[in-house]
């Protein structure tokens, strides 16, 4: 089955990005396709290449980049939300791309299910 996932909150402050990541991993393990992960609102902060969490904590951004590389995931950051919050190509982590909100709608159309994670 084709899933799409939308994330509305940034890393660490809320569990949204953690839950979404573990959901995606489980879906992939079950042989489903993740059509797209869309980062909206504060969710765009998951794409910052400059994050550096403490050694003993999970690295949320790096984890998304790795999952994207392993499974050719399409991680899309909403351009308008990103500009408001200071995420641009120059601090965009590997595996993410910046694009328009239409990518969320398109994912909703093309995927069999769209699951949102937020506050």
């Amino acid at each position, binding site marked *: 089955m084709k899933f799409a996932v939308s994330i509305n909150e940034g890393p660490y402050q809320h569990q949204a990005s953690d839950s979404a990541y573990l959901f995606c991993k489980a879906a992939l393990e079950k042989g489903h396709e993740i059509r797209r992960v869309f980062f*909206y*609102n504060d969710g765009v902060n998951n794409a910052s290449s400059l994050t550096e969490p403490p050694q003993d904590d999970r690295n949320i951004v790096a984890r998304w980049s790795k999952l994207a590389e392993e499974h050719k995931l399409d991680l899309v950051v909403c351009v308008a939300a990103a500009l408001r919050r200071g995420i641009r190509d120059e601090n965009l982590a590997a595996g993410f791309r910046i694009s328009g*909100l*239409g990518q969320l*709608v*398109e994912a*909703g159309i*093309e995927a069999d299910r769209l699951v949102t994670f937020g506050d």
Partner: protein
Amino acid sequence: MSEGAIKKFMFVNRKAPYGTIYALESLEVVLITAAFDQDVSLVFMDDGVFQLKKGQQTKGIENKNFSPTYRALDGYDIEKLYVEAEALAARGLTEDDLLVDVTVMSRAELGKLMDEMDVVLSF
């Protein structure tokens, strides 16, 4: 890309405006979804009904008043606006307080409508 597929999208607005950005961002997605020629329904329940309140004046909080956009939805052929009757009543509001024409529904009717959707986005 969408190969002409039309899906039923519902946007569930449950939060008051200005305290958080969700009401504004919901409007953005709604407009884009309409541009993709999808079937768009907006639901206002809980504090989300406050988004439609007439007379918003944001100068004092130095923020942008985005409520006129609700009046513009009609121009984008977005006409399915549903408001929870119980939510209005619990907030001392009536249809006359709202910026736009809406269909007031009971919670039971809203629940039924929700079931018929393909994609439900909550803000």
